[in-house]
Every structure is written in structure tokens, then in C-alpha cells.
């Protein structure tokens, strides 16, 4: 396994306020990295760095050995807690979106035979995430869990090098969340994904991850609370876990 995403002495500062300091770590290909930490500890900043939504004040981020482009791109897929799907497209068109953009620079839409082929792929993807019966349904009519399934399918069909999940199951009911754990583990194994997941739920982090990063401030200065940024205070490699070892049936998995 090689280093896929590398952070080299990365700092993020907003003026006086230091958010992250000297973050150096390497994410290996095929890893499922969970990121935990209290609110305001820079978890989301870390994810936004990986996404390219934000650029580091100092340091370098490399994906596949190349400097990361400081804007979102095709090599990194993402699922947010909310608003991850397009409300004006039905399920199948949401999944087709990436293929559409790839297929035509000008109209952003595939036509004819190419569209039929792409549609078959998108359908297969939706069936895989358990949305085979909701192809023509608009997101507003889908439940929260189904919307997240759709968002995952939409990201995966583009085969990103790394999948970024920003509290993807945070807004879901406990039962649905369990289903989603089973789903994401299965997809991770099947598609040999590399996943970076931010979560509030420590149990979830350890259950799903092959590695858990905990962000927090190492020092607090009451006179200057912004003086010290967050660092990776714990880095647990859960080496005993290989993809094959994580049981697929982590919960009742029904579509």
C-alpha cells in the first residue's frame, strides 16, 4: 500500500487565529480514515483542505505525489451531511450528472447511445446502493437515508481516487445509520475505496475506520485562545482490520 494523500507540515491560520498547526500525515491507498474531535477542532477544515475548498497557509498537500489543486476536482468525491444532491434532478439524473459533464463540455448532457450506456451504468450504481426502485424520484421525496445513498452513488460512479465524507450519517436515525454503515463498508470493500470520514460519533469512527485520527488543541492559553491551533493528538492505526475482516453484515441491510 502506498501513500495516496500526503499532508506535509500543514498550517491553517485565519489572521491571528491558528486553526490547524503542523499537520503531517499520509493516507495510504485503501484506508478508511475516521476523523474525530470536538467542535471547532479543525476536523472540517482538514476535510476542506483535502477537498481543495481551502488552501493551507503553510505546508503542502499532495495527492498521488502531485501538489493538490486548490479547488474541488474529479479526483476527490464528496458526500456532505446535507445538500449533496441536486434537488432539480431525479435520482437517475443525479447519478448521470458526472457522466454528462464528462461526455459533453458544451451541453453538459449526453445524448443518444452514449446516454443509454451511461444510464445503464447509473442504474446499476443505484441498484447497488439500494435505490433500484426509486430511479425517477426527486430528492425531496426521498428520506434522509435515501438521499445520502443517492449522494454516495453520485460520487462513486466517477471513481474518485479518494472519497471524502463530511458527517455523512450525522442527520440520520440510529437504525438508518446502521444500514448506512453496512452499505459504506460494503462499497469500500467492493470498490477498493480510500475514504476520509469526519464524524462526531466516536463509536462510528472506530467501527468503520481502519485508522482513527483525533484532532484537538494540545495547549490552551486562556489569555490567547487563538494562539494554538489543533493538531492530530491521536492517530490510531487499527492494523488488525483489513477490508476483508470487516463484516459486511454490520446491521440489517435492507434497501
Amino acid at each position: 500500500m502506498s501513500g495516496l494523500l500526503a499532508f506535509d507540515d500543514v498550517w491553517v491560520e485565519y489572521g491571528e487565529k491558528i486553526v490547524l498547526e503542523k499537520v503531517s500525515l499520509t493516507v495510504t491507498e485503501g484506508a478508511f480514515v475516521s476523523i474525530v474531535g470536538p467542535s471547532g477542532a479543525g476536523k472540517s477544515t482538514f476535510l476542506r483542505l483535502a477537498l481543495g475548498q481551502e488552501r493551507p497557509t503553510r505546508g503542502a498537500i499532495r495527492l498521488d505525489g502531485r501538489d493538490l489543486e486548490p479547488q474541488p476536482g474529479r479526483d476527490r468525491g464528496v458526500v456532505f451531511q446535507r445538500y449533496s444532491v441536486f434537488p432539480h434532478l431525479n435520482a437517475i439524473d443525479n447519478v448521470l450528472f458526472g457522466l454528462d459533464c464528462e461526455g459533453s463540455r458544451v451541453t453538459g448532457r449526453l445524448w443518444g447511445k452514449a446516454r443509454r450506456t451511461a444510464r445503464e451504468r447509473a442504474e446499476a450504481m443505484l441498484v447497488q446502493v439500494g435505490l433500484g426502485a426509486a430511479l425517477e424520484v426527486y430528492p425531496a421525496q426521498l428520506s434522509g437515508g435515501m438521499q445520502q445513498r443517492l449522494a454516495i452513488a453520485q460520487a462513486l460512479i466517477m471513481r474518485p481516487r479518494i472519497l471524502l465524507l463530511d458527517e455523512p450519517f450525522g442527520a440520520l436515525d440510529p437504525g438508518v445509520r446502521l444500514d448506512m454503515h453496512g452499505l459504506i463498508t460494503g462499497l469500500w470493500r467492493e470498490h477498493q475505496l480510500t475514504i476520509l470520514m469526519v464524524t462526531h460519533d466516536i463509536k462510528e469512527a472506530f467501527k468503520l475506520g481502519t485508522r482513527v485520527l483525533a484532532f484537538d488543541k494540545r495547549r490552551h492559553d486562556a489569555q490567547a485562545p487563538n494562539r494554538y491551533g489543533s493538531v492530530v493528538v491521536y492517530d490510531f492505526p487499527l492494523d488488525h482490520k483489513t477490508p476483508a475482516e470487516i463484516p459486511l453484515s454490520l446491521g440489517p441491510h435492507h434497501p
Partner: protein
Amino acid sequence: MRRLLNIRPSPGARLLLGALPLVALILVYVAASAASHAQNPSEKILPTLSAMADQMRIMAFQVDPQTGAIPLWQDTAASLRRLGLGLSIATGATLILGLVIGVLPLARAGIGPLISAIAVIPPIAVLPILFITFGLGETAKIVLIVVGVTPFMIRDLASHVGAIPEEQIVKAQTLGASTWQVALRVALPQALPRLVESLRLSLGPAWVFLISAEAIASDVGLGYRIFLVRRYLAMDIILPYVAWTALLAVAFDLILFTLSRRTWPWAYPARAR
């Protein structure tokens, strides 16, 4: 005892409740008209319904020998043409500028303040400028409608597009979308229903600007006719003309309302009554 605020009318009752004040208003008018005509049969301020019907029969079905046209239809066609052209230009300009400002931070910084500055100018105040620049013909009237409604529509659409969740824009980029593709496939479809809503809201002001321009300098049009016959206190023409104008406005509103809901059902999630 159910609280007043929890009593909701059924669809039938709602229709009845809506019609009631309208019918009452007409009845009050008829009574007042009859009373004033009992005192003075040649009274002109409150014409009877039959007098209005007689006048409208002339206006709507008889060719005016001077112009060779039927006045009501000639006026309606002229006004609707101005209104249609003005609103089409306004809508087109709004779609392009609203999208560009909404999607591109650079454009927002560059032309946003200009649009805001233009929006605070009272359009009627620039009417003399338009008459001087474009003459008294059709152009000035159409430009007045455009100048009057476009800045508001652009600002409305740009803020709506700008309020599309950042997550969607980022997601589109991770799916490989370019700036153009984000504008075309993410921003444009979500802007269209709002554009129609904003057009509906602009219909009222557009009519105001149209009637004003027609009243000041025109030789045909609904506003022209109303202000022309005012000289003869011809309330029996003015009132039906105003009612006709209102009817047209309601019809357009209804058409846009229905069209938008049919075309973009996703933009109108089912609401609890």
C-alpha cells in the same frame, strides 16, 4: 370550541369566501349608481352597468371610422405588444445577468453595485430622459418597462442563485463540472422557477409603467384610451377598461403560475394545507 385560527375553509367554501366581497362590491356599486341616477338621470360619475355594457359594445365590436380599427382590440394589442416586448427583454437580460452575478464572485463584485445603484432610481423619473433619447415612439415605452423592472429582477435572481448551497456547487465540481457546466446544469435549472416568480411579481409594476407612458405620449393603447376619455368624464368607458386591464393581469399571473408548477414540479414540494 375550536379556535378561530384553526378553522380552515374547504375548497368550496374558500371559493365562496373569495367571491363574496367581490359580489358585495358590485352590489354596492349598482345600488349607489341606481340611487344617483334616480336623482339625476344624466349623472356620469357612477354609470349604470347597462350604460357601461352599451359603451363597451361600441368599443369592442364597432369599427372606429377614423382609424379603421376596433378600439378595444387595437388598444389591447398595442399595450400587450409593448408589455410583451418589455417583459421579454427584461426576462432575457435578467436570466443572463442574474446567472452571471449569482454564479461568479468576480461578476458580483464588478456589476453588482451598479445594478443596485440603478435599482434605486425611480423609473418614472427617467421617463423624460427616455422620451428625449428615444423619441415619443414605441421604444421609449418599452425601455421604460425594461428599466423599471429589470434591476429588481436581476437582484432577486442573483441573490437566489447565490443562495444555492455551497455544497451543491462543490459537489458538481467534484463530479467534473466546469464553470459553464455548473451554470448550465446546476444554477440555470434552479433559477428558472424563481425567474417566473419574479416575473409574476414584476407584472404589477410593468403595468404601472406601461399605463404611465401611454398616458403621457401615445395614440393607441389601454392607458392612452383611459386618459383620453377622462376629458369627457366618460366613466362608462374608463371603468370597463380598468376592469379589462385587471382581467388581463390576472390571466397572465395565472398562466405563469400554472406553467411554472407544471414545468418544474420539483420546485414546489407538496405543502400541507
